[in-house]
């Protein structure tokens, strides 16, 4: 089986969860014998073509730009489409698998010129991310609907997303398949010197390290973590906070941190490579995921695999990954008091925290290995191909 996978981000072009999802899925599919070509956008320093773990990766540089976002999207899709026209001459693709609306214009065009079925994974929706308030957001929403209309099957990563997508785009329930995100467990099997890792960020071994990892954008709710810092610090005067990630909200969050009077406790690292994020998770006392909208929440799986107690908002996919007080701790979204309670619940009872971590690790191994997810994806491919 030959699959052309289209995604606008693929490592080292990593922004959110899509790059990691596509990489994990493509590699696991290749292990199952599926021939996967990934066509994606370039990133400075990354080769135009490479083969990694059996996956062929083609990176495309759009030769024409435009300051307007939507115009730029249409332009880069033209260059993706042109690349696929070239690879399709050599490869007889059985199907096209696209990830999110950003590559839908090229994916839908390729579907029609190759006359092959289209599978679309919808990782999130414009309506869920930020609501529909502007002409651009209505256009994106329409593109998302069009993607689901053109696709033979739509894949989502959680049941909450299935409800959201079926409800918002009026799709038949049976057209949408739920296949969760996965995690490369082996990547986390690295020895970590906790003292050294903490030392790099000015956290001593006897201090409590509370970690956030993710984009710095409103849907992630990082402001509620920052608002909870004084409450947590009053109970744990030795608490330190590390906020890992990049995003347009960073300036605002840094000034919010300043306003708490506890800025010295909070470190903003910006983007860090995967191995450093894993080292931090393995060195932290708690991982907080304060999202207000989270279609899946891959960072929860990462924390559960790394062996750090996870404290997460009970929203979207997070509500399906975690079992309260068994594999993690739920908090109310948009609620700093609840967040502070969750952190205290974990820090005040190390034995219980250890039990949560053990349960979480077992659950990840059972349900979220890429091998299991790739097998399920192949079943969907086969159903679409009539095999």
């Amino acid at each position, binding site marked *: 089986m030959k699959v052309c996978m289209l995604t606008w981000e693929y490592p080292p072009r990593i922004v959110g969860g899509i790059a990691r999802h596509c990489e994990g899925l493509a590699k696991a599919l290749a292990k199952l014998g599926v021939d996967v070509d990934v066509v994606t956008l370039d990133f*400075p320093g990354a080769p135009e073509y490479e083969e990694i773990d059996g996956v062929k990766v083609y990176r495309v540089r759009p*030769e024409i730009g435009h300051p307007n976002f939507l*115009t730029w999207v249409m332009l880069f899709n033209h260059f993706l489409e042109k690349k696929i026209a070239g690879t399709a001459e050599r490869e007889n693709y059985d199907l096209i698998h696209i990830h999110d609306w950003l590559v839908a214009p090229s994916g839908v065009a390729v579907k029609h010129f190759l006359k092959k079925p289209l599978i679309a994974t919808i990782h999130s929706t414009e309506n869920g991310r930020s609501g529909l*308030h502007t002409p*651009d957001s209505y256009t994106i929403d329409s593109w998302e609907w069009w993607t689901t209309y053109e696709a033979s099957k739509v894949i989502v990563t959680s049941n909450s997303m299935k409800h959201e997508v079926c409800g918002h785009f009026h799709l038949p329930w049976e057209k949408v398949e739920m296949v969760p995100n996965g995690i490369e467990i082996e990547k986390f099997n690295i020895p970590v010197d906790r003292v050294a890792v903490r030392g790099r960020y000015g956290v001593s071994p006897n201090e409590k390290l509370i970690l956030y990892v993710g*984009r710095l954008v409103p849907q992630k709710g990082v402001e509620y973590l920052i608002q909870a810092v004084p409450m947590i610090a009053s109970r744990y005067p030795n608490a330190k906070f590390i906020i890992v990630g990049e*995003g*347009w909200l960073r300036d605002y969050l840094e000034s919010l941190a300043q306003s708490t009077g506890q800025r010295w406790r909070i470190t903003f690292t910006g983007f860090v490579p995967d191995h450093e994020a894993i080292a931090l998770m393995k060195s932290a006392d708690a991982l907080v995921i304060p999202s207000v909208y989270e279609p899946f929440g891959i960072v929860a799986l990462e924390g559960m695999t790394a062996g750090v107690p996870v404290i997460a908002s009970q929203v979207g996919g997070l509500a399906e990954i975690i079992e309260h007080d068994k594999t993690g701790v739920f908090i109310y979204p948009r609620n700093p008091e609840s967040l502070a309670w969750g952190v205290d619940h974990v820090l005040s009872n190390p034995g219980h925290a250890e039990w949560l971590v053990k349960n979480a690790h077992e659950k990840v191994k059972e349900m979220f290995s890429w091998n299991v997810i790739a097998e399920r994806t192949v079943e969907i491919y086969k159903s679409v191909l009539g095999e």
Partner: protein
Amino acid sequence: MVSSGSESSLPEEFRFLCMLHNIGATTPEHSFSIEEIAKWTSLETSVIRVHLRRLIEMGYVESTKVNETDKYHLTHSGIRKVLSLYS
């Protein structure tokens, strides 16, 4: 996330960073002079200079000299900053 649709609610220098990214100024080989940026974005060169100074300070933009002219492009961190809006 702020998606594309909310770009207008961004601080001015980030809207400018997005424009610089979207016109393709993402490597030293594809960097743009202030005059070129002005043509692409319809912004005054004085405004562009202010944005660039601030974005360079924040580590999101770098300049290179090409034939005695200063040209500007996004750093990796700048690219990730922009993409965080859109993903």
